[in-house]
């Protein structure tokens, strides 16, 4: 069939408009703040073979999360796929990416023929398991983390399977999750209607041939980008610290990247074996991390469809920390993305220094639950605003301040301060850029932040999970690293709450480094520094929470930085006079 090149452009635009519209629908109809505020979801359209037509990721970490599941479903159901079916899935051992990320798939038919799929996957506020919210630092097996949902039909030929629905939601704590799943089904129905109308307008033949032409064109763009990387074998690595079980434990991530003409292979085979705790990735989450990192190195306007991923090869063997074997705990897996990104940037840095960034800040996150004294109700708070550090600098550009980890890349918004103080019992004392937190360099790393919050709930529990508290975000080509992530509590009473970190609160490596806050200086009582994976119970009212989110690494020798920019940074008090003199060589 003759290809109408102009129509191919219109196809691209139309697919994107559908997946965007599905995302808008989800933002407006979901209830959990992780979905409607942090937008931790993806909407996509796939063809009958499970090839990506387009998707709207919202968070980059979901960039590879739907395709493998779609193919699992196709294989599992074969010809038993009908109009009106709705399929649900989260199982990480059949190509899910994280237990909490629950996908809905809806087949799309045109005149009785399967022509595609609409899909929506979102991070649910609860998914069963031992701990509400799913992040269980004590987990060693998947069942301690979540309910496993392999591909199951929720609707068959348009009819709700009430028994299946009840079985699933009998195992999930919050009724909100049911509403959010309904919202996902709604978004898929919207995508179904739109694609159906589209195929109806152009006919199946034109749809098939022009869709393929779109893939080919996108693949060509991607291959052109890869061709610009010199052929070679590149090695890079990074380190994961502490599995939540064994103090001082560390696990290397290693990548070998082979570039041959227009193909690129990412091989992570030599990475550490899987851990006994929940600090494990899974194939789909690791491939998402690889994809999003590479996408940041290429033309950002490349459409997101099958053609984009076709030239990329992933090797992530089972049994490694990036693809743990059944039945390992893996909820932390998405948060290994920063280390995967670090390894890739470090590997390709020498080959294409202008395309990579220095180290981004890693996630260190806290989640509070407790009783709200003003409302008498339970409250949950994921402290988004405290966790977001800076991005690494790159050639020609300073890093982005307070953007958060690379897996979100500025997609997760801070809570509004005043709304936050209405909805939680907490009072924010400080949330500001931290001076000297961006790694020094000819291009400076993005700034990190300092956050202080007075905790005013009753019977508060804090779950901590993350990283970045041991090794600074690295600088490149003479650029310096950044400050470390840190969380600490200053309780008003000398009785310390219980947590793994409680014992090393006084002294040891994690000792507070003074002078960030006048509230903390000189006070030796009631200090607690949690571990990077930790649960702390019984935090008393009026405990001061301090969090530092590190900046990004610097790029290039800081002495070469434009002196006017150094002066401007000093004037704006984001670089101290001392650093300006010592690191940047500013004379006066």
């Amino acid at each position: 069939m003759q290809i109408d090149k102009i129509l191919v452009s219109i196809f691209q635009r139309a697919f994107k408009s559908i997946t965007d519209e599905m995302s808008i629908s989800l933002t407006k109809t979901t209830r959990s703040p992780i979905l409607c505020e942090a937008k931790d979801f993806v909407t996509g359209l796939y063809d009958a073979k499970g090839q990506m037509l387009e998707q709207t990721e919202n968070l980059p970490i979901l960039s590879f999360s739907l395709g493998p599941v779609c193919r699992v479903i196709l294989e599992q159901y074969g010809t038993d796929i009908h109009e009106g079916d709705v399929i649900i899935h989260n199982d990480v051992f059949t190509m899910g990416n994280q237990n909490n990320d629950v996908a809905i798939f809806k087949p799309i038919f045109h005149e009785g023929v399967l022509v595609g799929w609409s899909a929506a996957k979102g991070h649910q506020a609860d998914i069963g398991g031992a701990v509400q919210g799913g992040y269980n630092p004590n987990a060693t097996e998947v069942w301690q983390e979540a309910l496993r949902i392999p591909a199951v039909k929720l609707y068959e030929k348009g009819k709700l399977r009430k028994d299946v629905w009840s079985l699933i939601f009998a195992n999930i704590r919050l009724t909100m999750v049911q509403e959010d799943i309904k919202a996902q089904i709604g978004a898929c129905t919207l995508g179904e209607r739109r694609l159906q109308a589209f195929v109806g307008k152009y006919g199946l033949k034109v749809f098939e041939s022009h869709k393929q032409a779109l893939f080919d064109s996108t693949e060509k763009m991607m291959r052109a980008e890869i061709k610009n990387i010199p052929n070679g074998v590149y090695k890079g690595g990074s380190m994961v610290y502490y599995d939540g079980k064994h103090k001082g434990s560390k696990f290397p991530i290693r990548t070998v990247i082979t570039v041959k003409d227009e193909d690129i292979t990412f091989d992570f085979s030599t990475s550490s074996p899987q851990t006994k705790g929940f600090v494990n990735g899974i194939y789909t989450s690791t491939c998402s991390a690889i994809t999003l990192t590479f996408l940041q190195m290429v033309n950002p306007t490349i459409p997101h469809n099958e053609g984009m991923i076709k030239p990329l090869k992933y090797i992530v063997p089972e049994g490694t920390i990036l693809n743990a074997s059944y039945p390992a705990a893996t909820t932390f897996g998405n948060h290994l993305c920063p280390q995967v990104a670090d390894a890739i940037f470090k590997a390709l840095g020498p080959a294409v220094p202008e395309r990579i960034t220095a180290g981004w800040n890693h996630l260190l996150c806290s989640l509070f639950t407790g009783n709200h004294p003003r409302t008498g109700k339970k409250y949950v708070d994921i402290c988004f605003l405290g966790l977001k550090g800076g991005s690494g600098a790159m050639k020609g550009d300073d890093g982005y301040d307070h953007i958060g980890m690379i897996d979100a890349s500025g997609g997760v918004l801070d809570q509004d301060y005043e709304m936050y103080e209405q909805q939680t019992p907490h009072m924010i004392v400080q949330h500001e850029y931290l001076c000297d937190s961006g790694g020094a360099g000819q291009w400076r790393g993005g700034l990190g932040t300092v956050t202080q919050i007075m905790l005013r709930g009753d019977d508060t529990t804090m779950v901590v999970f993350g990283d970045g508290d041991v090794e600074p975000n690295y600088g490149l080509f003479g650029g310096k690293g950044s400050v470390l992530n840190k969380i600490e509590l200053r309780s008003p009473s000398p009785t310390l709450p219980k947590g793994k970190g409680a014992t090393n609160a006084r002294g040891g490596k994690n000792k507070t480094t003074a002078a960030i806050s006048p509230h903390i200086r000189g006070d030796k009582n009631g200090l607690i520094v949690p571990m990077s994976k930790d649960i702390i119970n019984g935090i008393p009212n009026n405990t001061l929470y301090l969090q530092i989110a590190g900046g990004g690494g610097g790029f290039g020798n800081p002495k070469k930085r434009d002196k006017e920019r150094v002066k401007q940074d000093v004037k704006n008090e984001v670089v101290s006079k001392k650093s300006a003199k010592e690191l940047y060589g500013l004379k006066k």
Partner: protein
Amino acid sequence: MRYNVGIDIGGTFTDIIAVSSEGKTIVHKTLSTPHDSSVGFINGIREVAEMADVSFEKFVASIDAIVHGTTVATNALLTLKGAKTALITTKGFRDALEMRRGIREEQFNNHYRNVTPLAPRYLRFTVDERIDSEGKVVKKFDEKELLPIIKKIKEEQVESVAICFMNSFKNAAHEKQALKFLRKNLKGIFVTASFEVLPSIRFYERVSTTAVSAFVGPIVAKYLDNLTKKLEGINYKGTLLIMQSNGGVVVPEQVKKNPAVTVLSGPAAAPTAGAFYSKMLGYKNCITADMGGTSFDAAIVINNECVTSTEGNINRYRIALPSLDIITIGAGGGSIGWINEGGLLQMGPQSAGAMPGPVCYERGGTEPTCTDADIILGYLNPDFFAGGKLKLNKAKAEKAIKAELAGKLGLSVLETAAGMYRIINSNMAQGVREISVERGYDPREFLFIVAGGAGSIHSSEICKELEIPMFLVPNVSSIFCAAGMLLGDLKHDYIRSYFTSFNHLDKKKFQTLLNEMKEEGLKALVEDEGVAKDRITFHPILDMRYLGQYHEVQMESDWEDVISFNMDAIFDSFHKEHNRQFGYSLKEEGTEMELINVRLRVVGKTERPKFLSGKIKPVAVESAIKEYREVYIPETGKMKKVAVYDGDKPIFNAKIKGPCVIEKITTSVFISEDWDCEVDGFGSFIVYERGKFPKGFKSNQKLS
């Protein structure tokens, strides 16, 4: 004879419309004078006087009101040439303005930078004061803390100061105290505080909006002072009214109090005019589409009212004041065609603008644009662009398309131009889809009104893509915004935050908040703007949501229902509105609801001008045919010779069969193969799919 005058100042042209008390309408375009736009403003009035055949002095004396839309604030934000601005805020919150909640709009683009903060960090000062979430003072504010800040502000020659303290929406005492002290001690410097600009919950939206107000404040004030002086200079005794972003008008003194209300002053007039036209034609709902040189604006009118939103951004700066909901996309006559690395043709968002402009303008442009394609497709007449004032070079357009695009695509010049036309139409259709479908409205149920010079040669294709059966090109299409300015009411928006579940709502407090806002509105309208009380109406809006939700619904209510606390009516309309927007309500479940903000819009109705055409004798349709020309027919993909009508001839109450082109000095209309056109009694064109002219459509009814 008394006149009302609307003036819209654009980048190239200043559009003027004068409507007399008897309905005589004079429409004029004069060149803008960017160095001092008041010069073009006065020139325009002078030229219109000549057209009205009266002396300048006499004409000025006969004007009751001049309504003006200004882009001064918009341009200050787009070019970052506003005042040198400082921000004073609560200790611990120095960076909220710059952080923008930590967003990066382009997640895969590591070269994408944050915006330049409107107040740089070294001019963001903090004071040790704190009010908690309940409005209680935690740390008392001491004015002495301002002394070193004042010193620094003077040293740095700051021109404008914004104040925004935490939780001031609950208790503004500290802000008031600081404002008073600073105004006293910073004479000649513009000072504003968040409780004056936007007294509502959400710190980021408030600090950002207040900073915008401070950033544009001195420039807007200077502009208005200069304009007022110039008008005094020509002995003008009537009223000067300024168009606001919310589609209403106010006197300059009100604008100076909160200059941020004018950031969308210009484009706000199009939907305002749309509301008027659709009502006149018997429609409740319409979509207005305005295609300019660089951008395409689409807006929506529901129940003859323009839709406002508080989700606005300009140049990525957040402005949370109620503004008309307008979608702007980068598609215009100057949009550049290019080929991406995958070999696919793309249009825009880069634009050649007015300078250097399309290749065919011969002003130095080398990249092929939408206008270049339109001329190859025969929709534009190279010898009659702007009535022949600007000669277009078709050969150059062809050469550029061939060199830059056609060769690489392996297509002919004509096929490439047709592709450019299709793609830009598809992009604009996407903009219309965004303003309608994505807001929960079906565009097929709307009258589609096309404004702007270039829009009407693209609109039938946009309509086809969205299955809209008809569009309207108003007789004043090219100066649609200027006309819209004469149609705006006096509008004042007020807001108070009251965050509570309805179960715990304090009735007295609720009513007090409403009455406070009512009094403020009355004061502004009656005392400052001289509106008679019987022309004033009150429109409460409640920001509500189900308990536990994050996104609230702005729900318009009835004043009587709200003030008398008629909860059943309020809850009922909330469930309905929620259902309309999101496809479900939780009425059956009995889910509790909560209130976030109470808003009040106070409206003073203005007299509507009567747009009547003169008593011109219509001519027969055939006599208006000026030539036959080859144009591109999208349905067949081929060129075809069609009739070209002179649209400036009085062809009223007539029917014109497609395919054809109707050419006016300021605009061209392309009517496609399966479409026809009716011309109404005022020279507006109603273009519709053949056989689908809507029954009961009142195209010729009397005005006003």
